[in-house]
């Protein structure tokens, strides 16, 4: 917003992605837009099924066959990735944009040694001999903190622990010095101490290698550790987008507020953690108004009918009627209009902010 487009490593504009099933098109992502500056970490937060992973797969050009990008653009260094051919994309994948997956247990092929797999990835993008590729692997293993790398390259995936395998995955993703790393919940499958190590490692490597990171997570702890910018997604829409400091200090959207409220606090005595009741609506049964309206404690009648625009400041846009001029004029919700269970449950909830 403040910068010109050349300064962005990645620019996503109005991305609409969905799936073709039989005859109709089910839209999942609804106008997702964000920017990633060089050397910056963007965290995409949201609960399961909100479209985080679909966003990352769209960037990589790895959508499943039934999925497709309907409109919008994904600009990587000014070049639109949505209309690249398969061949051009596979030159970019692994070379300029890399990805780390959630499950280090299954992301490595069990029949090959880890060294062989990474060396293969290196040799696709770099014109090097097998020996040089292995040297690069050893170098990468050292970089990501795998002890005795020269021996470890000959290990099979099942001979390594989960944390080690995730380090291997990171080594594989970074072997070709990518400019952008997409990490899809890289720490979810790991235990907490290993999580912290992996996040520290990613932060270090980001600074050393001068790359940008798109971090996909449902864990706000990861956001506070990693994020420069934070994108909060709900049901395929961006509902709040700001830097991580303002997100924690001043969360605007009721959903974001709910997420932050539901983190256990260290101080004070909490009897019961507040929860956001219900779950993300099914893509085929999206509410016609605000997509969060069925779970929102503050929803007014208009919220169920009309979808809010993006409002708020340029640095902190939020998709909620509360921050538009009309909020005061809107009719409070009495619970009569919708008999939806989840909405009446949501009304029971205490407002979380005054």
């Amino acid at each position, binding site marked *: 917003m403040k910068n010109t487009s050349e300064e962005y490593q990645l620019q996503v504009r109005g991305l609409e992605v969905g799936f073709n099933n039989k005859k109709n098109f089910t839209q999942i992502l609804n106008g997702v837009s964000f920017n990633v500056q060089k050397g910056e970490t963007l965290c995409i937060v949201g609960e399961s099924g909100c479209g985080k992973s679909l966003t990352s797969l769209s960037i990589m050009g*790895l959508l499943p066959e039934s999925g497709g990008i309907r409109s919008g653009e994904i600009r990587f260094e000014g070049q639109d990735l949505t209309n690249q051919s398969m061949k051009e994309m596979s030159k970019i994948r692994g070379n300029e944009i890399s990805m780390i997956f959630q499950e280090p247990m299954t992301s490595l092929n069990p029949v090959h*040694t880890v060294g062989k797999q990474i060396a293969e990835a290196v040799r696709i993008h770099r014109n090097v001999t097998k020996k040089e590729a292995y040297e690069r692997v050893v170098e990468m293993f050292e970089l990501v903190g795998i002890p005795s790398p020269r021996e470890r390259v000959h*290990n099979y995936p099942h001979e390594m622990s989960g944390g080690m395998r995730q380090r291997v995955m990171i080594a594989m993703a970074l072997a070709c010095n990518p400019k952008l790393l997409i990490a899809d919940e890289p720490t979810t499958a790991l235990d907490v101490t290993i999580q912290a190590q992996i996040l520290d490692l990613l932060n270090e490597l980001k600074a050393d290698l001068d790359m940008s990171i798109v971090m996909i997570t449902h864990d706000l702890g990861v956001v506070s550790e990693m994020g420069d910018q934070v994108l909060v997604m709900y049901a395929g829409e961006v509902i709040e987008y700001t830097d991580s400091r303002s997100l924690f200090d001043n969360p605007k959207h009721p959903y974001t507020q709910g997420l932050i409220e539901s983190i256990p606090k260290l101080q004070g005595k909490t009897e019961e953690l507040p929860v956001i009741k219900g779950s993300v609506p099914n893509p085929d049964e999206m509410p016609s108004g605000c997509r969060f309206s069925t779970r929102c404690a503050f929803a007014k009648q208009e919220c169920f009918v009309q979808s809010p625009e993006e409002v708020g400041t340029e640095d902190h846009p939020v998709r909620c009627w509360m921050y538009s001029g009309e909020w005061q004029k809107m009719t409070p919700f009495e619970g009569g209009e919708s008999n939806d269970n989840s909405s009446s449950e949501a009304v029971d909830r205490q407002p979380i902010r005054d």
Partner: protein
Amino acid sequence: MEQSQNLSVQKPKAQNPRLRMLKTMLERLLQNKLAVFGGVVTFLLIFTAIFAPWLAPHDPTEQNYSAVLQAPSIEYWFGTDNLGRDIFSRVIYGAQVSLQAGLISVGIALIIGVPVGLISGYYRGFIDEYIIMRMTDAMLSIPALVLALALAAVLGAGLTNAMIAIGLVLTPNFVRLIRGEVLAHREKEYVEAGKASGISDFSIILKHILPNTIAPIMVQATLAIAAAIIVEASLSYLGLGTQPPNPSWGSMLATGQGYLDSAPWIALFPGALIFITVISINLFGDGIRDMLDPKMK
């Protein structure tokens, strides 16, 4: 000097990973007594087939009218048939035919089945769903022997044609098996991770998916060899396989049928060998499956 000694202490850990894997697999195979038995008998048969000219005491096609329908004796260990041919020698040469039929027809099935299964499973789509799969369904709906019989009859009698017919009949099993494996593996995260690092479809199929399907392919192949031996024996028995005077276990059974009361040894020995061969190969195949399955410890 001291450093090199330190390194050599760590050596066993850093040895060739493939060798290390092979060693644990072999250990696992040797623990399975039945598989060891099957393997030993199978290798004995292969040995017999290869060295048949040196092992056979007589020419298998030589007719000796002064020694027709003789019971087993020191001269003729397994007796002689209605034309005075030595059954022991014919059984030894018959091993050549049976093993050839087993290996070559399964080879044909693999050469066609593996690529078709890989491509069909990986790319899916119309051709996979409506042409390849329905064709395999159609072929699998006809009993293997009947189909092989029809194909062999069309191609003409003879061992080569019988092997081609058996190979074609076995192919749909491999297509289905491999397609199923590919369908399971193409959704695995390591395939996605491979794509994410820019590996081409061709390399993913060949270097990542195929090695993961080797274990079931090997098991299916050993079992198919046993099946192919039976089908070849059946075709020869019916006169569509090996042509006389060349010895084959199936055609020997056919000859022996007429003499079951007077000279049971003509049918007994080739029949017993078909039985032993098939059961040994099956036991060995089971052993290989257990050996390749890392969950079996």
